[in-house]
């Protein structure tokens, strides 16, 4: 089980930047300066990306800790 937790840590490390890049790409696709719905306005996206950046970094750090075996004895 500890090995699985460590290997998956690598996946969580990758997931952080992947999610963030995907979010920025989706935002760029949807933002329309003349848009009237929430998903086409820039402000919600700026807020969401601002708040998700530390969360994605957190997921990467979580993965790093898992990779290094910091959670091995939690079971």
């Amino acid at each position, binding site marked *: *089980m500890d090995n*699985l*937790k460590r290997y*998956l840590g690598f996946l*969580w490390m990758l997931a952080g930047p992947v999610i963030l890049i995907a979010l920025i790409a*989706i935002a760029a696709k*949807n933002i329309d300066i003349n848009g*009237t*719905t*929430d*998903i086409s*306005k820039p*402000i*919600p996206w700026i*807020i*969401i990306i*601002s*708040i*998700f950046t530390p*969360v994605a970094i*957190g*997921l990467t*750090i*979580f993965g790093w*800790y*898992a990779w290094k075996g*910091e*959670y091995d004895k*939690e*079971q």
Partner: protein
Amino acid sequence: MQSPKGIWKVITASSVGTLIEWYDFYIFGSLSTIIAQKFFPAANPTAALLSTLATFAAGFIVRPFGALVFGRLGDLIGRKYTFLLTLVLMGGSTFLIGCIPSYATIGAWAPALVLLLRLLQGLALGGEYGGAATYVAEHSPAHRRGFYTSWIQTTATLGLFVSVGVILAIRNIVGVDEFTNGNGWRYPFLLSIVLVIVSIFIRLKMQESPLFSKLKSEGKTVKNPLKESFGKKENFRMVLLALFGATMGQGVIWYTGQFYAQQFILTKCFVEYEQANTIILISLAIATPFFIIFGSLSDKIGRKHIMLAGMLLGVLCYRPIFQELYETADLSKKVENVAAMQKLESVSSVAGGVGDSVKLVTVSKVYEDGSQSKISTRQQISSKGVVSEPVNAGKEIQLGSAGKWKMVGLITLMVLFVTMVYGPIAAFLVELFPTRIRYTSMSLPYHIGNGVFGGLVPFIATLITTVPGTDHLSGLWYPIGVAALCFVIGLLYLSNKPGKNAEQ
């Protein structure tokens, strides 16, 4: 630890205040359409921008920020005075929202003031929950911590229940027109000040948490709770585990089962406003005791298994449940009672268009299962007699008794999933962190999980439905995906035993 009588005083004082804070936070959301008309006219770009900020910033930025600000304060000066402060801030802001003159009276000041007060509400909410949960947990015996803290967990749902109930009651008392176009919508906000004063009075009589008092008397409180919580690896790794292994999934399950379900039956199933809210109220009333049942059960079999079971049930059942909700209101599957069909036509002039007019046709139908529908279409008729294609101008369905109770059953089931993930989580979070940094450390993952991951459900669900080829259920992939990821992380990395920090 407290005597049995003492602990109930603690729970009452904490729960009533937290319930009021949730009530305050929800009435803004429930009345957002009216608030938008009064304060944020879409035609004004500044007001529209402030409206967007009020919607997104209050939940996503200010709540986690409030968790940090008040969490730090709670670990420095104590739980009691910190969550008194959040209560005053929340109650004062809510009351003042009810007092602000409309955009038509004071112009751009109106949306700016509403935005400011909404941000203060978010800040206060960010500080309240961690304080209340910590306060109750630190008065509770270890073997009953899940049971006692689950009373705090009922407050979020009861807050929604009370807010919907108060809005419906005032709407009925003053009339729909006065409520929507007059000052009736202000009363739920103004009522808050009475509730808050009562709650402050109760809380002032309470003592500081015994664990925090002991820590303080021994001089063991920390000087910088933020640095201790997030700067030290042994604590920070638990903050991350709490977020990605528990609160992230709990937040989306909570939001989907209560708020997205409400939005879905209103906007996708077109259930009539009062009936939709009545269905929600009944479901909440039936399911709420299960917060206590699952909280108590978590004392016996552990927190992890119950929370993860709730997440897994959400992952597996959301699509079939929402499909059933949709089909319950699907008119194409109902048999019409043709004899009772009515067609109402009205033709009205269009302001500013001399000779032009609008033809509004409302067709009322009755179905053999007792359901009724009203479908309106609008056609433009020019002065030359050219009639445009009919466009949809509104749809409303009043379900028959069987359909209504079926929806109650389905939504109750989803709220039961909520009670599984949410009932034990306060005790779970409290037990992960030591007393000296507990308020700070548990508040942040809770508010990121609920405010950010949960709060994003409607936005991302809408986003998904803009992708070609998607349908009315596609928006559910966001909560299902987040809950599934959280389930995997929780299953692998969480322990089912109380954290070693529980008694420190």
